[in-house]
Each structure stands twice: as C-alpha cells, then as structure tokens.
C-alpha cells in the first residue's frame, strides 16, 4: 500500500527560495494555510525565509521550490549552489521558468533600463533577466503568475505517490468552454490570449469577461502566429500585439517571434 510506504520514510525536506520576482508565488504557497498542518504531516519545511525564523541554511533538500528569475551574477552563483544541494528542483512560477514580467526589460538596452531608475549606475551590474533553466537543470515546472494552488498540491502529492503530476498544457479555451462562456474573440472582438496560453487557472479572466492576459505562459504547441493575425484582424496595432506577447513569456521560444525578436 502506498500510504504505508510513505509513512515509513522520513519526511521530505522542502526549501523555498526567492530570486528576482514579486514574491507572489510564495504568497500563493502561503495561501495554502487552511491545509498547512495537513501538509506538515508529510513534509518538513526546512528553509523558507518568508515564514520561518530559523532556517536550515545548507541543505540538502528533497524538494526546492525556486521563485523568481536570475538577474545578477550573485544570483547565478546562488542558483548553482542550490542546485547542488537539491534533489528535486522546481521552477516555481513564470519568473523562474522564463523571466515573466521582469523580462520585459530584456527588450531594451540594459543602459536604458538602468538610467530610468538610477542616477548613478556605476554600482549596478545586472544581467538580462532569465529563467533558472538558463543556468541549472530543472526537474519540474509550475506554470503561472502565480501558479494555482491546485497545481502546487498536485505536484506535491504526486511527489509522495511517485506518480506523474497531472499538469495540463492545453489552452485556457478548454477551461473557458468547461464554464460555458461565449468566446470573447468571436462574440465581442476582445483580444484574448486564451488560445495560446496554458490552462491551469480555470479560465478566471474570460469568465469575468476579461481577456486572458497569458499569465500561465505558452500552451503545448501553440500557434501564436495565427493568433497575432487574428488580433490584427480585430484592429490591434503591431505595437499592441508585441506587448501582448512580451508581457508574460516574451523570452519563450514559443512567443519570442510575436514578441518582436528579429
């Protein structure tokens, strides 16, 4: 029986790390508070600066959830250290996967981004904003800005059960149709990113009559070129189309062309 198998083992140690990002993914993890005690039956939280005073600094960790993208030389060094001490490394959220919103600044010269914020840039030595997979091998990704709690739980449960987590890669349109919504594109000419965006949110925005912004990143085998021409057809300017594809996943292989890579 799998339950006995699990009870017999030592509890897996979880670590949560933050790099360049808004801490929203960690907050989503914190939002599991109603079932936190149940989770602690199965896991030890070994390192999580946001919620714990005492943290085990030097690993090793069974599961490391890494939030945020990599944007400084220190962060490059740090993520490599974490990789060494982690058995199972999760890119936790869009920033860790591909830079997400912070990566918008990749599309302008570094100098320009820096001078918008700092008078004296001599102490700044930021790199382009990239996902952690640029520097280390990752074992799983949790899509979303932030990931949905059900997906976080699915990953943790399947870790215990040693099963493949059911993390959907199909488009938001599927979840949108589950909810019997009329399509915003075809009924109202609203430029929705649903047809190229990975599901997982339950079609939150389209169900509130707001276009999908694309916050779960590209679905499997999307056709962004087709969606860009549909946006053009309903009257979006080239700049707006580029902005839409840059917003959450402009650095992804799937979206980079529509995001303006030439």
């Amino acid at each position, binding site marked *: 029986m799998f339950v006995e198998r699990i009870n017999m083992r030592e509890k897996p140690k979880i670590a949560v790390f933050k790099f360049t990002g808004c801490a929203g993914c960690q907050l989503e993890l914190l939002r599991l508070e109603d079932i936190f005690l149940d989770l602690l039956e199965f896991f030890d939280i070994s390192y999580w600066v946001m919620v714990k005073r005492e943290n085990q600094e030097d690993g090793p960790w069974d599961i490391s959830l890494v939030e945020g993208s990599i944007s400084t030389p220190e962060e490059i060094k740090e993520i490599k250290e974490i990789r060494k001490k982690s058995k199972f490394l999760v890119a936790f959220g869009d920033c860790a996967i591909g830079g997400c919103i912070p990566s918008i600044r990749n599309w302008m010269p570094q100098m320009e981004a820096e001078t918008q914020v700092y008078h004296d840039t001599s102490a700044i030595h930021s790199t382009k904003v990239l996902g952690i997979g640029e520097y280390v091998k990752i074992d799983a990704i949790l899509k979303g800005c932030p990931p949905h709690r059900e997906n976080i739980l699915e990953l943790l449960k399947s870790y215990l059960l040693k099963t493949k987590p059911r993390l959907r890669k199909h488009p938001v349109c*599927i979840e949108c149709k589950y909810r019997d919504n009329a399509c915003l594109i075809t009924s109202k000419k609203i430029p929705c990113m649903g047809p190229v965006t990975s599901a997982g949110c339950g079609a939150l925005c389209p169900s509130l009559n707001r276009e999908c912004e694309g916050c779960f990143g590209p679905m499997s085998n*999307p056709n962004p070129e087709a969606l860009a021409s549909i946006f053009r057809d309903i009257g979006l300017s080239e700049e707006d189309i580029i902005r839409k594809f840059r917003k959450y996943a402009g650095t992804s292989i799937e979206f980079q062309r529509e995001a303006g890579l030439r």
Partner: protein
Amino acid sequence: MKQSTDFFLLEKNGIDILVKKFLEEHKVFGPIKPGHDSTFDEIKSPKELHLDYISTVLPPKKFFHPPTENLFSFELIENTEWTYKETLHDEKTVLIGVHPCDVHAILRLDRFFSEDFRDPYYLSRRENTIIVALNCIEPSEYCFCESMGTGPFLEMGYDLLLTDIGKKYLLETGTYDGKKLLDGLKLEKADKKDLYEKKKLLEQAKKKFKRHVNTDGLSALLDDDTHDWDIWTKLAENGYPGKSFPCLSCGSCSLVCPTCYCYDVYDVIDLSLKKGVRKRELDSCQLLEYAEVALGGNFRRDRRERIRHWLMCKFGMAAGGDKSGCVGCGRCIRICPSKIDITEVARIIRGE
C-alpha cells in the same frame, strides 16, 4: 416507447402553464438567455425560460456528459481495504426548448454510451430526462442541419415537441412519458389546419438556410488515403485563402460540438493520501496531449493531422462512425477564433 401522437394547441403564454406543471415533479432546464450565446440552465420559474434563443455555447450534452464530473469516490479503510462509492444522478429532469439538431446529437450519444459498452453515468442521467423539443422556424446564419438530415423540424427523439405556428404553439406528444407529463392539463386539440400550417412553415424554413454541405460521397473522398494533404497543411499553416486564419488547436470546436464525446479520466487524491475521486472531463482531438502515449510517443503530433482528424470524425470516418458525426448545428463555426468553417472545408475537399 413510441405512442400514437396527440396534437394540441397552446397559447403563447401557455408555455408558462406547461413549465409550472413540469416543475411540480421535475427539475427543469432550458435556455435562459436570448441570442446566439445562450446557456441551458435551471429554470425555477417560467419567466426565466427563453424559447426565443438562437443557440447555446455548450449544447445540452452538458447535462448527460458534463464538461467535468466525479464518477466515484474511493477510500482506503484502515490501510487494508479499498471501498468506493459511485456518483449517479437520477433526478427526474425535463429539458425544454431543445432544437432538432441537438436532439439528433443526443440520440447519437445515446448509442455511443450504450451500444458497445454501457456507461452508467451517462445513462442514469439520460434515462431520467424528458425532452421537450422545439422546431426551428428561423435557422441561424450558422445552421446547416437541413444538409445533414437532422432538422430544422424533428421526426424522432422527443417526448414532447413544440412548433411555433404563429399565434400559438403546436404541441405534439412523442412518447408515453411525454403524454403523462400533460396529465391534468386542459389542452385545446389541434386540427388539420394547424398541421398544414406546420408543414408550410417547414417548407419555408428549409429555404432559409445560408450554409449547406453536400455529403454525397464526402466520406469516401475523406477515406481516400491518396487524397492530397494540401488542405490540411493549409488549414494548419495558412488558413484557406481570404477567409480563415490557421487553426490554433484551441479545442473549442470539439468542446461545443453536441456529438463530440471524447473524454479523459483521472484521479484526484485527497491530501490524506487515503481517499480520492475519479473524475472525467471532456477532451479534444485538437490538443497535442490527446494522442500522446507512454514515453512521449504521439500519433498526431502535427497540427495538420489533428485538424484532419476532426473533419474525418465529423463526417463519420473515425472510430465513432456516425455516432460522433456532425448534425449541422453550426456551433463550431461560430466559436472558432480562426473562422474555420466546416461547411467551407467540406467544399474544398470536394474540390468545389
């Protein structure tokens, strides 16, 4: 059981009396908004019903084969024994205002879920549901049931049937269950004149279709392996000239299709790791994961293979045969963000 038909006349507000009667012993579901993007939902009072609707986003399939459902729950007792409990729905239900195309679609799903295997989840709902159909006087711009032999008027599959014949509704009984539902109501009998009026309206309705499919020999054309892949490559990469965009593989077309039955089954385990639910949800052959097998193999990796499969299936050339075949409701045409029109694709296949 087919019964001799009774014909009645119903004042326009007579629908209210009918619905009130149904509500006495049944849950009642019907279209709740006018227009193209209506929804079938629960009707708690007659004024919520909108028989003036044109079409719904999801077809009435959603009552028998819902987008997502729990099949059964299971639990491990004292770490030794598994128990399970099925979730069957057997509430007495009336579906009112179902258009002929959708009734035909339900008849096909009935066969799919009962012939080669019996699906208790579908059938428990279906066997407890009475269908009050509504003939179509005004086909919408997307409709082409006339080409598919499934409308705009109905000859089978209904318990009760309504036709708007101008000042009144013609009400016909189709089954014993339907008749019984009218017990105790004082209804005016219809006469020959009213039936003639219905026939006339049918002839008029048939002439109003804007979309058509010539199905003659179409399946054979699709089945022909030597048939070139040009059209599928075009649909996947360019769209057809001047009219459509390339397919997004968004899956909306199958989710709104009243005869698409494909589903996925999976377990959701509770955090105790000792109990869970087995679920199923609608799937679509347009999605990459649909034909994925172990070790990352995939039978339809290319978009063009997937869009081809859709048309093969809708014109009876896939595993479902005519059980998953198109009934001409036009929903996929309206929902497709890329403006891909199944009637247009059929025309291109025919070389027209």
